[in-house]
């Protein structure tokens, strides 16, 4: 369950931000999950619910899946990642280290592995809402 490690990272980063902004209670955490990494949404949500500390007791975790768009640096062709074309072990390798996509995926137009991942790579904290210490 590699999702568990990512959930730990989300909680640690959200706690750091809450600390910096003086939030005593977190209400909502918006998380963007890139399609390229093929995160199991249910496992990530479960891990987040298990790892919540007191500050996060009433927090809602909003997960949004971001489509993975790739752009060839050689011919500038843009395309969307589709895992259906990959075999299971390749999909799993990309799940752990999305950059190995450059090992297995080529530009469908010119065949180059030199592409940019425009959107949808990993897990990102988009925003945090909460109650400031001096609000209550």
């Amino acid at each position: 369950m590699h999702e568990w490690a990512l959930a730990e990272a989300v909680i640690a980063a959200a706690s750091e931000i809450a600390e910096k902004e003086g939030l005593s209670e977190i209400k909502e955490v918006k998380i963007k999950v890139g399609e390229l990494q093929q995160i199991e949404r249910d496992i990530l949500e479960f891990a987040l619910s298990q790892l919540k500390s007191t500050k996060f007791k009433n927090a809602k975790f909003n997960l949004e899946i971001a489509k993975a768009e790739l752009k060839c640096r050689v011919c500038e062709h843009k395309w969307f990642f589709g895992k259906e074309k990959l075999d299971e072990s390749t999909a799993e390798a990309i799940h752990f280290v999305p950059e190995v996509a450059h090992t297995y995926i080529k530009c469908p137009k010119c065949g180059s592995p030199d592409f940019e991942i425009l959107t949808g790579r990993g897990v990102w904290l988009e925003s945090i809402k909460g109650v400031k210490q001096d609000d209550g």
Partner: protein
Amino acid sequence: MVDPRTSTINERMRGIGRIIAVSSGKGGVGKSLVAATLALTLAKKGYKVGLFDLDFTSPSTHIILGIEGVQPKEEKGIVPPIVHGIKYMSIIYYSGEYATPLRGADVSNALIELLSITRWDKLDFLVIDMPPGIGDATLDLIRLIRNIEFLVVTTPSQLAFETVRKLVSLLKELKIPVMGVVENMKMNDSKIIQQRSQKLGLNFLIAIPYDPKVEEAIGNTNKLLNTMLVKKVEEIDSKI
């Protein structure tokens, strides 16, 4: 938008005693051989050791140590397998035998991903085999790992040493500890590299003579342990 991964890296590495990046300004000086055999000799002495191959585009420590047919376990992150007494991590688990062309930003991303999900648990030493130069991997390790220290490898060539000088001056400026210098593939008794290292205030650890037996020993740890290279590397163990 915040990348949450960097927040967990120091927590993940909390159980590690010393983190040693084996580095050089140039390629081909024997960094991977020194890193792999340093991990091997420390493990043989009973220390808990990890080896992390950070040369993502040209990984080679798995070939040196003859590591194949193993994979990390997935358990609230990834747990590296133990081979020859070493917890071993490399991108080859995911890229296999294929070429992995990565640009700087991709190297950075893959490095942060692996640092944030790998569970080393308790280690006395984590040896990191670095890619050559002072590019993304070096800058990221300095940025992300609090207690990193560098072991610098050179050859007797003044070309190699010149790049080492630049690497070391950068590390000094950033107040990153340098454990010392290893001179590899020595063909004569010249003391030039030793003197130049000491002039820079560096600890000159060992000089490894050029040993043609090393090439035949690659992939076979028993043969490796009998090379002059390993006998010399063992001397580093007692100096660090």
